[in-house]
């Protein structure tokens, strides 16, 4: 793994629900709390909506890390979307790990509309962690179908 | 039936009769008590208000020893020890504390040991046995006095009804006795101040004794050495505070059961009491 990461700026995509985490991130803004620019937020109605394929696509597209965040249990605007999501992630993580995909690069969190500070913290710590892990070249290498030779030999 | 056994200092000193009666009835009920080897004081002193680490480390060592000696369950007759061990067990759920403490005692502890008091032991393993083995029904009207350490804090101990405990009453009924309905079951006997403010102890214990006597109990049944010694040993001082002095004995539930099982007063250490026991 790449260790001289001083200049390495990880690309991170955040998949968040509209009602809690998106609003929480809004609060981060209104409270003028600062965080790293590496993260770009994609807005979903609910964590229940987030398709696991989108996470894989993000990595394939060169993301080095992903944040998935929604309402705390029992706070879901749709009462149980986040519970369904939680199960999906439990399953997904198990599978990815078994396939040797680096699940440390996916940060799951519950951030409520009132937790602006928590959002800033999640982003910053995630950026720091991913910087530590370095770019996800291992995955990106296989992502481009043209250079297959390192696997088809 | 094998259970770990932590007597603690009181049972080895001021309340030997409790120890003797516990051991005696355990034997009579085919419960094998395995005393924890190399056990130490549980720290049931002011320690827990002065030095948290110490107050956790002392019991933690006991628990760790028990675990190391392959025990799964430990019976702790002394209410104070029981309380300290349970509280420690609870506190050690916090990993940081556990690490800190196990580091101090230089022993690992999983936190899975089961800690029970005498009443729980009898409730879980001996009720039927007691029933069938009663030879001399304990046909007396008595006041079951639980004190505080046995059931408080309820959040942690999770034993019996906190405001109106029943376990001892049930056992007394089982051996043919009649528990009175009274209000001082869980009142404080003053043990916490038994050194510094004996006057208060006399007053508090006095209230308890007074009500039990007025409701015409023939004895007070306890499961805590502190309660016992306060109500028994300090009877002189207490009686001075009472308009009409009381001479009812204060005996351990284990002694009462022992009598019902036909064991001799001697085996049960009944002659060790200050207020002599005529039952």
């Amino acid at each position, binding site marked *: 793994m790449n260790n001289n990461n001083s200049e390495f*700026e990880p*690309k991170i*995509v955040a998949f968040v629900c*509209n009602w809690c985490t*998106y*609003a929480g*991130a*809004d*609060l*981060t*803004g*209104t409270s*003028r*709390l*600062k*965080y790293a*620019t590496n993260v*770009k*937020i*994609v*807005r*979903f*109605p*609910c964590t*229940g*909506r*987030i*398709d*696991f394929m*989108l996470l894989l*696509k*993000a990595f394939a*597209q*060169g*993301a080095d890390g992903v944040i998935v965040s929604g309402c705390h249990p029992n706070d879901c*605007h*749709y*009462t*149980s*979307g986040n519970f*369904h*999501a939680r199960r*999906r992630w439990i399953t997904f993580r198990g599978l990815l790990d078994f396939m040797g995909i680096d699940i440390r690069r996916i940060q799951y969190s519950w951030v409520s509309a009132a937790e602006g500070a928590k959002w*800033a913290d999640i982003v910053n710590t995630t950026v720091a962690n991913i910087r530590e892990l370095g770019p996800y070249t291992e995955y990106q290498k296989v992502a481009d179908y043209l250079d297959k030779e390192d696997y088809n030999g | 039936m094998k259970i770990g056994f932590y007597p603690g200092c009181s049972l080895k000193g001021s309340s030997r009769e409790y120890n003797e009666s516990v051991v005696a009835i355990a034997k009579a009920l085919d419960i094998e008590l395995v005393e924890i080897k190399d056990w130490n004081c549980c720290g049931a002193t002011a320690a827990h208000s002065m030095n948290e680490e110490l107050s956790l480390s002392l019991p933690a060592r006991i628990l760790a020893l028990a675990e190391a000696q392959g025990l799964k369950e430990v019976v702790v007759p002394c209410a104070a020890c029981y309380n300290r061990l349970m509280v420690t067990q609870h506190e050690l759920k916090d990993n940081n504390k556990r690490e800190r403490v196990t580091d101090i005692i230089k022993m690992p502890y999983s936190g899975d040991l089961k800690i029970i008091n005498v009443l729980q032991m009898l409730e879980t393993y001996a009720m039927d046995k007691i029933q069938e083995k009663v030879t001399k029904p304990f046909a007396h009207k008595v006041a079951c006095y639980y004190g505080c350490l046995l059931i408080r804090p*309820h*959040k942690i101990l999770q034993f019996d*009804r*906190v*405001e*109106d405990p029943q376990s001892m009453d049930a056992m007394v009924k089982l051996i043919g006795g009649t528990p009175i*309905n*009274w*209000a001082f079951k869980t009142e404080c006997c003053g043990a916490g101040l038994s050194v510094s403010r004996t006057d208060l102890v006399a007053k508090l214990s006095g209230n308890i004794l007074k*009500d039990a006597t*007025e409701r015409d109990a023939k004895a007070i049944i306890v499961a805590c050495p502190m309660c016992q010694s306060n109500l028994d040993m300090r009877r002189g001082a207490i009686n001075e505070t009472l308009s009409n002095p009381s001479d009812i004995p204060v005996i351990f539930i284990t002694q009462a059961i022992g009598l019902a099982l036909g064991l001799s007063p001697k085996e049960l250490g009944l002659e060790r009491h200050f207020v002599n026991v005529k039952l």
Partner: protein
Amino acid sequence: MSKIGVFICHCGENISATVDCEKVAQDIRKVEGVEYAIDYKYMCSDPGQTLIKDAIKEHHLDGVVVGSCSPRMHEPTFRKACAEAGLNPFLCEMANLREHCSWVHEKGEATTEKAFDLVKMLVEKVKRNKPLDSIKVPITKKALVIGGGIAGIQASLDIANTGHQVILIEKDPSIGGHMSQLSETFPTLDCSQCILTPRMVEVAQHPNITLYTYAELDSLEGFIGNFTAKIRLKAKSVDHKKCTGCGACFQKCPQKRIPSEFNAGLGTRTAIYVPFPQAVPNKPVIDREHCNYYKRGKCKICEATCPTGAIEWDKEDEILTEQVGAIVVTTGFNVKGADFFPEYGYGQYKDVITGLQFERLASASGPTLGEIRRPSDGTIPKKIVFIACAGSRDEAKGIPYCSKICCMYTAKHAMLYQHKVHDGESTVFYMDIRAGGKNYEEFVRRAIEEDHVNYVRGRVARVYEKNGKLIVKGVDTLLSGEQVEIEADMVVLATAGVSNCGAEQLAQKMHISYDPYHFFAEAHPKLKPVETNTAGIFLAGACQAPKDIPETVGMASGAAVKVAGLFSNNELVREPLIAVVNRSAPPVFSTCVGCFMCQTACPYNAIEREEIKGRDGKVIKTVAKVNPGLCQGCGTCVAFCRSKSIDIQGYSNEQMFAEVMSLLNH
């Protein structure tokens, strides 16, 4: 080839201070499909909106991205603007350049780059947006009110008075609820029944209200504007059409010693009974559990005495199906009772009673005709102790919350006692006196100062009987800091208010959420206090949390207005951001294979089965179908669907996919 317009807002300095808005606008022009891009100081201002409208017309834009503040703030504004310019509002998206960018980052290239990315992301999304039309659902203009206490009565009357039909169901034989049990009411001390009974009668006589007593909700299906309620009419065993309410039957009934619910167990009633003299309807029902005939197969004395032959022995429960458009839940609360206070000896000592029981003692219609007498021996208590917070605000009792009404009714009780027993001595043990409310504090002061009620701040440790007296052991934490012991003749516990029995099951029947204490949950603690998370179902009164009469009535009227508001439209308009199952040409019809995994996933039971039939009427295949009235658009089903047959408008697979793909690799 799409024609997207991008509008970058400076938000005064808020965005432009850290983001180079002009650069973003310039660069975004280079993105394929972007027809027009411009930055402006205040996009949300009138000139700003005009800018957008003109651009839409001039450049025939088929999509708009506004890069400004959070969509949670101004999405409606800009979508409206687009609509006014003739562009479907759902072809307008917002990039959050303020809350998610300029405000959280320092000035610099990275920040501007991120702003660009956020805009680009939305450009890619909006390219794939589809024009959507708001959903319209018809509304059945008839309301169902569940629970005939003061909340239900008020809500029913208010709705009925707007000219809409109301069905009021009450599980007991009479409406009136807890309020009918009360003696006087704080802070005015006017007689509860005197103010309540007229309204009960009004309900019974109102042309727009259909009242079903002795009835419960059996099941509920459907969605806002279109509910189907099955109502169980429990067998009264008395034909109320024939019954004249003469009362001969219950005078003769041999079963006389049944504890009366209305008198909180202090009085008795017969097996065929009217709960109380002012009951509405004032006609009896037979309590089969206690009736000799139903128990032993003989008796029938009531039948013999009934002049109109109204008794119906083999009457069975009926299920009534009603179509309603809205529901108001007003099922009220309950008070904690026996065995909850071993330390206070409730259930053990006859003269330790609950506040509700005291109400009955103090009530002129009560078992003692309003005289305060001890249940044990009927003597008048000379010393009485009231214990506030009996259970409430007590973690150990599992009730950490404040029951809210106790402070006030305890003061009232003490006052009433002093008014009725002049030489009596009353003491109140309290934690804090919570008398927030118009004239409430004054009322408590009156109890203390004019009626000389002795208020002691401190908890009571226990109550026990000693030679005929109740010894109350407590502590005075305010003045002496000493323990206090009072030898009382009677103790009244201001027991905690708790959710009504069966609240949980009812909530599940209606798919509304509830809190850990089984009180029904409002949609928003501040801004939606009478709504529930299920559209079309509203709350009023103590079923949501303990509350007093004025608050309950206010809430009931509030709920009624919500219903009236709903009924003021002929159809309901909803945002079309909901899931749809695709349909395609035969022979496929839909890629849905009908595994119906989505059905268990949907939090709203919005997924229905649709049978696709051929010309011969034979079912070709069964596929999922989303009920647009029920779907709230969470999209959980979408992420589930293996064949991607179900998709959600506004957050479609194509849109989200495009967003993610656009983000990186450049």
